[in-house]
């Protein structure tokens, strides 16, 4: 159930991103990353391998769907790493709402920086130090600007599913504690 909901959320986020957000004539060219926010919410509620796979799938979709103008695989790699790292390390930190936003902000900043870094590595002529110095914080900032309307509802829905699944087994427990020994 949770997997299906996560998949639906991610597909919706991808469609929202490429269908609407990427096409908005936003000032200064900084585009919010709706997929990243939903991916963070999903990764906070799933295992590292699943989150990495989900991130890879979303990233590949973003890489291939029409407004894409970069090499396929950039977002796949970035989202894959974001999914993995958020799931692996963020879950322990993100017990409260502020911490979740912190994780999302770190992910947004990391994604934007990683995108710029990949651009530099791949000799993308559009990515320079000056452009990146503006685009990285700007993208992270506008992403965080829309996070209350995407991250919070998605996270809340997934948390609801977490608790429902354990309703019959005893008192509801916080989702982050379910795994118990997930730290390995």
């Amino acid at each position, binding site marked *: 159930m949770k997997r299906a909901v996560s998949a639906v959320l991610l597909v919706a986020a991808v*469609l929202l991103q*490429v*269908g*609407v957000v990427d*096409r*908005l*004539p*936003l*000032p200064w060219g900084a585009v919010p990353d709706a997929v990243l926010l939903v991916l963070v919410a999903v990764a906070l509620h799933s*295992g*590292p*391998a699943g989150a*990495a*796979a989900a*991130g*890879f799938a979303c*990233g*590949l*979709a973003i*890489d*291939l*769907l*029409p407004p*894409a103008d970069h*090499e*396929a*695989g*950039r977002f*796949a*790699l970035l989202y*894959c*790493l974001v999914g*993995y790292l958020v799931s692996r390390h963020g879950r322990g930190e993100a017990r409260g709402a502020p911490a979740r936003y912190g994780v999302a902000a770190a992910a947004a900043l990391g994604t934007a920086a990683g995108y710029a870094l*990949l651009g530099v590595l*791949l000799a993308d002529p559009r990515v320079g130090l000056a452009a990146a110095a503006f685009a990285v914080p700007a993208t992270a900032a506008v992403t965080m600007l829309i996070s209350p309307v995407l991250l919070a509802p998605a996270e809340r829905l997934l948390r609801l599913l977490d608790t429902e699944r354990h309703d019959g087994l005893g008192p509801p427990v916080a989702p982050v504690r379910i795994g118990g*020994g997930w730290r*390995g």
Partner: protein
Amino acid sequence: MRRERTRRRLVLAALAAASVGLMAVDAGDEPHPATSAARHAAAAAFAPVSDAASAVFRPVTDAAAAIAAAPGAKRRIDELEQRNSELSAELAARDLDDRRSRDLEELLQLSGLGGYEVLPARSVTRVGTGGYADAVTLDVGTRDGVRPNMTVVDGGGLVGRVVRAAERTSTVLLISDGASSVGVRMEGTGQIGVVHGRSHPLDSDAPAELELMRADAKIAEGDRIVTMGSHDGAPFVPGVPVGTVTEVRDTPGALTRTAEVRPAVDLGALDIVGVVLAAPEEDPRDAVLPSEPPSDAGRSPKGEQG
């Protein structure tokens, strides 16, 4: 647990490797067939969704575009307004130029007919000292050869005479000024008289008055008047149209006959005028008058009575 950790690291490594491989394949100048095929497939699958999203969110994107364009639109409006006012000014200037060109043409014609040597000038300001004097300032002066007591004409006829000439400006006393008197001659009959300016008469709107020297002189409405000419052409050169008789006054017992005169020139709307620098060799007499009285009833009412 250890196996779990190994498994997920393997998954991550495989996915990362796949991404890097994709990038490596796709990074060349030409897109790799596999990735471009994938892109095409994705685009084809996404097209309906894209269309639907576009249709649904068009108002949103339009609004966003409008908001994003708002500062530019403001600037654009300012630009257009400025351009508009520039063009209006240009158009007005062109109208003015047209009128001046017409004025100059008429002036040229008059000076050609009379054989006057004319210096074109613009009347800059109309001055009236305390409301009594009727005078205009011209933008030419001694620098251009203007001297006091020169005749000033316009395409229609006599304007006045230069009373003061400074280096760059000169002052012209109009024939309607109370202090102005012009020696004149009637068209045809050649009777002589004087046209006095009346400045701002209370009893009629005629700005000038004709006084004929003989009490029994024949005079009728519509009769035209030209300057008689002064000694050496100063202050008035001969033959310049002065005006038209509009009303003959019946003054029994007076030594002279008087009539109201409508000047040949619209003294209220002077623009391009000419200063006559040199009088013609011989008196043009009536040659400068238009060949037939203008049919415009308002300007010169006809009424040929002996």
